[in-house]
């Protein structure tokens, strides 16, 4: 004997409803497998360790390329978590349900990106000083490095999310995504690595950091809506 819900109860969607729904759900999924967040960090550490192996281990050289390598590592780590961002929801039909929900796409798209950043970008930012130490960076450079990552990784998550949504259902899967996302990541990489480099060479890091901040604001304003729209196209 099943008790039906009261049909016709007014159902209303809202930005906050969609945002909190998506974030709560994705964090719950991530929490179910805490290893995933750990693994992002492990991957980052691994990539950062591969370079000295390929290149050789002269301290000066390493200090010189350290900021660049750390940023590239962060970028690849952020990138690696992307294919799963929408693909799983697409394959099991959740994305259809999201598209048909009364909440605006803007809300749940932003919520998903926020959860993605908390699981991938945040731990990575927190780890970066340790990696920086291995490359022999100075303390002030380390601080700038961490700050630039804190501002830059959300941009990576947003940009990457948009590309992941666009590449949904398109053939070529992850590779296509790489091709779409990486060029967009480049400006972030340039400002981000530029900030630490400026600091290391005694210049001011502020211009780079404020450019990065501007990119973050622009991404926050424009991208969630774009992601919602891309998802709608993918589901069709």
């Amino acid at each position, binding site marked *: 004997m099943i008790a039906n819900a009261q049909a016709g109860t007014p159902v209303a969607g809202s930005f906050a409803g969609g945002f909190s729904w998506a974030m709560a759900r994705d964090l719950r999924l991530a929490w179910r497998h805490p290893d995933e967040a750990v693994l992002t960090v492990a991957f980052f550490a691994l990539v950062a*360790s591969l370079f000295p192996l390929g290149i050789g281990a002269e301290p000066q050289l390493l200090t010189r390329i350290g900021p660049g390598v750390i940023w590239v590592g962060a970028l690849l780590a952020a990138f690696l978590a992307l294919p799963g961002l929408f693909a799983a929801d697409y394959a099991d039909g959740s994305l259809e349900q999201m598209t048909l929900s009364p909440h605006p796409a803007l809300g749940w798209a932003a919520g998903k990106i926020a959860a993605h950043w908390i699981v991938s970008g945040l731990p990575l930012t927190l780890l970066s000083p340790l990696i920086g130490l291995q490359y022999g960076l100075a303390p002030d450079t380390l601080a700038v490095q961490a700050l630039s990552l804190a501002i830059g990784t959300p941009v990576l998550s947003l940009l990457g999310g948009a590309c992941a949504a666009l590449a949904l259902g398109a053939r070529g899967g992850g590779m296509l995504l790489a091709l779409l996302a990486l060029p967009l990541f480049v400006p972030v990489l340039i400002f981000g690595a530029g900030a630490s480099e400026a600091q290391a060479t005694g210049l001011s890091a502020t211009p780079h950091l404020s450019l990065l901040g501007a990119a973050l604001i622009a991404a926050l304003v424009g991208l969630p809506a774009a992601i919602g729209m891309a998802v709608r196209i993918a589901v069709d």
Partner: protein
Amino acid sequence: MNWFYFSSPSTFYTLAGRLAPWFFILAAALAAWGLYLGLLVAPTDAQQGAVYRVIFIHVPTAWMSMFLYFVMACYCGLTLVFNTRLSAMMARAIAPTGAMFTFIALWTGAFWGRPTWGTYWVWDARLTSELVLLFLYSGYIALSNAFEDPRRGDRAAALLALIGVVNLPIIYFSVQWWNTLHQGSSVSFKGTSMHVTMLTGMLVMSAAAWMYAIGATLVRVRSVILERERRAQWVRDAGAA
């Protein structure tokens, strides 16, 4: 001695429970003796000064990190070939202790490197392959826990451990195959007067590490057995003994 008798988890559970405390006691006694020799008796090295005393934990932990991996890989082979339950549980029980020793070897090496080489870390083959060993241990642990069905985790992780065995000779011979900062055999200490005390201290500490590893593994394997055999009648009957 009937090995098949002890290879059943229920009998091994009891046996391990009985043996573990003795290994810990032995480990504590040996560690006390080894630390006494290493920290108090052994003379300070003329070239390096007192930092060299890190050797009494660096070398034993580095040895154990490789040896435990080897033992784990052997159990993994048994798991894959004979599908024995206990061997898989033993491998799972060894991995965290192995990872702990690997971490300590890396850590002590780093703190030894700073005063002697002027840096905490260099990317030479010995250090890197030891770091890879740490990742292999973590990979083993992550993979074995990444499946809903623990038996699948056992088998998948066992296969990984066997593939990773290639890394052991690389760690061991890296100092010969490549030009590294890390010293090969303990050249700088050869022929000095402290040789004997130092060697004894190192060997005693190694024995301590060995006993500790066995004790920790036995305790952990008991938990693993309980987790895995939760529904078996003997666990119920044992009344969580």
